[in-house]
């Protein structure tokens, strides 16, 4: 019965996250239209109990974002990115048993092979920042998807801006 309650609460909090997904998160770079990036959950309500500690929902709730965005062909981290990643680092350090994968992605306006390499650069850029900020390297793995897995499907600057990203994926 306790298990069931937990699941229900988790489901409710996921709905809360999904429900505000289109809201502009304060700490993120200028908003791409139709952002699918997860955002911080709304403040307390009847179903505001915390997600399961160490879960993806918990990560999203506490860090605010699993994603940082990059300039065209870029892999440097700006101050907004490092603010997000500093929170990610704190969460990862407090959950040392959670292994995560950092996915590097690119927009469609590059050749396939170059984008695989560029996605690897982006994922490693994030990994290096997290390690420098105290996260155990053994917690982190990287993978590049190049341009093969966009989140925004338009062929326009707003979509490309969302697709040039690195996503820290906590196991569900």
């Amino acid at each position, binding site marked *: 019965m306790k298990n069931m309650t937990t699941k229900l609460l988790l489901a409710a909090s996921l709905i809360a996250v999904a429900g505000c997904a289109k809201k502009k998160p304060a700490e993120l770079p200028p908003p791409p239209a139709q952002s699918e990036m997860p955002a911080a959950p709304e403040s307390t309500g009847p179903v505001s109990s915390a997600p399961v500690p160490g879960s993806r929902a918990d990560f999203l709730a506490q860090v605010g974002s699993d994603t940082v965005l990059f300039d065209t062909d870029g892999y440097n981290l700006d101050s907004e990115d490092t603010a997000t990643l500093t929170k990610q680092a704190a969460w990862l350090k407090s959950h040392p048993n959670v292994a995560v994968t950092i996915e590097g992605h690119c927009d469609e306006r590059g*050749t*396939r092979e*170059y984008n695989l*390499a560029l996605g690897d*650069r982006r*994922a*490693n850029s994030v990994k290096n920042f997290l390690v420098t900020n105290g996260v155990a390297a053994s917690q982190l793995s990287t*993978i590049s*998807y190049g341009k093969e897995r966009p989140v925004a*499907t338009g062929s326009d600057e707003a979509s490309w801006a969302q697709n040039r990203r690195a996503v820290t994926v906590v196991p569900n």
Partner: protein
Amino acid sequence: MNPCKPLMMALAGLLAAPPLQAQIRVDITGGISAPMPIAIPAMPTPAAANTAAGNTAALGRQVADVITNDLKNSGLFAPLGPGAVRPVSFKEVTSPDLGYWKGTGAQALIQGFVQANGDGTLTVGCYLYDIYSAPSASEMTRQGYVVSPRDWRRAAHKCADTVYTRLTGEGPYFDSRVVYVSETGPKNNRTKRLAIMDQDGANHRFITNGQNIVLTPRYSPNGEKIVYMTFAAKQPRVYIYDVGTGSQRLIVQQANMTFSPRFSPDGRYIVFSIAVNGNTDIYRVSAGGGAPQRLTTSPGIDTAASYSPDGSKIVFESDRSGVQQIYVMNADGSNQQRISFGSGRYATPVWSPRGDLIAFTKIGGGFSIGIMTPGGGGEKILTGGWQDEGPSWSPNGRVIMFFRTGQGSGKADLWSVDLTGVNERPVPTPLDGSDPSWGPLLP
């Protein structure tokens, strides 16, 4: 698929070489001259017989259709196929009815026959005539092919290759296959499968099931293997697929991503890239596996390596200067020289099998396919779509296949273009397609 059976043999004894004389020739220097009109009537059969590929009478028409399609797609011919000219009798095959053929407007004529042999094989005869050589039509070449019925299309491609080579002076390319990435599904979650087909789109089959993303397949020089990259087990790595057995194996055991593979011209090595902590360099490894040898060390992305046909050099792209440009180095990694200096970026260089040109993707505004010499001269842009990329050469170095992605939809399709920049045409595939690799001329 049947590996390495002796599929066909030319009937050299039966079919003597024709006498040489001043004869017609197709101008191949540019796209300005009109394609040569050539008649290709349905091929008769000496005796109608049922075979595993259908009746020989029906096959004669189908063979002529395949030849017609090949020659038309080359852009150098204006074929009058079986639908446009009358069929011929078996005894006409060696003595064409000049009065009729002159009236068609054709300059050359392909006649032939399809015969069922007692041992279950087919013989396809193929004769090329110059209609206007005085005083009578002269036979320019003749060939015969013995094939198993399921390979009847290969006999047709061989006939088309013979005619094409005789009339253009270029090497053959119709009897060849293509491996590519078949794509379907929504833009943010495309299913990608390796598929093989004849260069004209026939005999299509999938060789991976779409469970994992697969990219950049490339044929081995003898067509028996395919090297490619797969995301199997979420570990993007280079694998080799054996076309005959269907088996696959990891080529290099590596903690990091391996990608962008390509065979050396002798098939002994695979040149590929490894991304280590954000830095990508080019390596080479024996096709049998073993320890990779590092060829580039620059900080930056060095990838998309392709050997010169003699194996002595490698062309590749690097962003060491700030953006993607094309470089050439010796096969051991020494003497790395930048060769692209135009405006914009240059990517995915591929050395022509003739050695005289390098095809590439040019990025600047749009994405186009272009060519330049190995010294970097003579740059010419051949295509212009929203996004054209990933060139691959035909076995004779005359035609380039590439893929074109649509704006918005993200749907990609295969296209081909003549190296003079004319005759751009779609290559038929059952679904969408990307990353074509044109295999060698079949034996």
